[in-house]
């Protein structure tokens, strides 16, 4: 097999892995947006909290470490809803977004204080590191985490799609995302639906924390911040009004970033952000409602 082909396959694998992780984040952000109409900029800090938990429990058995990561993230997610999102219900989108900026900075600053107790900045999350080893598939080196990321993403998305389609809470969540006022008129419990969205969004953040620390075990207060910004962009580009277009948007921006990075000449990769964001602008101008948001007539589920 030629070198070029193997490099391409490797890039493709990385692109799928990155896309999968971003898709998970997009679902987490999109679910909460669906029921609360709130763009949660502080979503990345949920992931950051999970990553720190993994770092501080590095000595524990891997399973215990991962479970505690999920526990911390879901608790924090619920606390965020109770203390911040609930009082903000009904505020203007700008106020909600800026408040989540403040929450994001608050959590980063808090992490800084906790992190610096030992006098150095950054902690290593080593327990899940074995997943980062490369495995050879037909002569191509692919990191295990790529498979895990794609597997986790597909599994989580299928499970969520089933829950949304088949269960009562899923039906209520979809209804609330589509028309909250009418849903409440029908007796749908707002707090229950929101709690469901917030918990699922937290679980997804926990999963992303595990996957990202495998890729990059060095955890700092700004962990996942950049990823979150990129995913937020991807979610809006894809179409934030529906969960599946938001998810596709997240996947696409992760996937495309890796491919563009590989396609650019080495001395021009520093301009990767410019290329990606120029694409973003073009897409937004052509399809302001979202790249994947086809006409309202399309028979798609709305969340």
């Amino acid at each position, binding site marked *: 097999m030629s070198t070029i082909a193997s490099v391409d396959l490797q890039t493709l694998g990385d692109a799928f892995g990155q896309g999968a992780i971003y898709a998970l984040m997009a679902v987490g952000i999109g679910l909460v947006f669906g029921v609360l109409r709130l763009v949660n900029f502080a979503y990345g800090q949920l992931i950051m909290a999970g990553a720190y938990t993994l770092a501080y429990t590095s000595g524990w058995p891997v399973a215990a470490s991962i479970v505690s990561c999920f526990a911390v993230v879901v608790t924090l997610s619920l606390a965020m809803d109770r203390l911040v999102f609930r009082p903000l219900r009904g505020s203007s989108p700008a106020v909600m977004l800026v408040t989540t900026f403040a929450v994001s900075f608050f959590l980063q600053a808090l992490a800084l204080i906790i992190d610096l107790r030992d006098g150095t900045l950054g902690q290593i999350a080593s327990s899940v590191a074995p997943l980062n080893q490369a495995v050879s598939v037909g002569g191509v080196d692919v990191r295990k985490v790529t498979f895990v990321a794609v597997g986790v993403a597909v599994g989580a998305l299928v499970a969520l799609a089933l829950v949304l389609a088949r269960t*009562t809470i899923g*039906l*209520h969540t*979809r*209804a609330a995302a*589509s*028309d909250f*006022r*009418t*849903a*409440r*008129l*029908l*007796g*749908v*419990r*707002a707090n229950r639906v929101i709690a469901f969205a917030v918990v699922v969004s937290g679980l997804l953040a926990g999963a992303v924390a595990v996957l990202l620390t495998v890729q990059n075990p060095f955890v700092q207060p700004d962990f996942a911040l950049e990823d979150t910004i990129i995913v937020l962009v991807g979610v809006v580009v894809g179409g934030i009004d529906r969960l599946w277009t938001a998810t596709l948007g997240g996947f696409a921006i992760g996937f495309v970033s890796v491919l563009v990075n590989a396609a650019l000449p080495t001395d021009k990769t520093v301009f990767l952000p410019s290329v990606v964001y120029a694409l973003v602008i073009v897409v937004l101008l052509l399809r302001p409602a979202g790249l994947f948001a086809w006409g309202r007539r399309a*028979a*798609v*589920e*709305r969340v």
Partner: protein
Amino acid sequence: MPEAAALELDGIEVRYGSVSAVRDLTLSVGKGEIVGLIGPNGAGKSTTLHAIMGLLPAHRGEIRLHGQSLRRRSAEAIARAGIALVPEGRRIFGDFTVEENLRLGLAARRQAYIGDALGPAFELFPILAEFRRRQAGALSGGQQQQLAIGRALVARPDILLLDEPSLGLAPLAVDGIFQAFTEIREVGTTILLVEQRAQRTVALANRTHVLVGGELQMTLGPADAEDTDKIIAAYLAS
């Protein structure tokens, strides 16, 4: 007077900011009755329904369900207490299937159910059973209205509030839903009907109140249905 009326409005006032849309409105709906509420646009009919449902606060006065005050209860709580609103414009979930729309109505259901929970809707409107797997948005206007009513009924509410259910429907479809109201009354469900079709409403309802400029103007009985002049006079009374 019957013991405790199913639904009582006792001197309520509803405001939008400093403007009061409904003033000193008192009326009661007895169990198993159909009570009509008619009046010109902007008379405060929908506002009254929204106040009952807890979507708007009553600035003054009291709304009681079976003698119990509904003050400070949220719309979702009131729905689960046994009042169902079929909102103006139907508000069905067009992207969902007919069956999913009906299952949403079960959110307010109080008792457990045996057999087909969606039965009440299917018995009244067999077409919904036939189209249960279809997208609700693909139904005709009349069928969508049937779906909206069916969705409210599967919760087995004590009281059904209807906000201009005949709006925008073809004459045949209007006949269909007015027929359905009679059948709904027969199973003991109480109805408060807000309508623009004054004559039909007066003919159907046990009592029909005429609301003008937010105030109760006149109350008509079924016998007044043929008395067009009287109805018109009530509308113009402001």
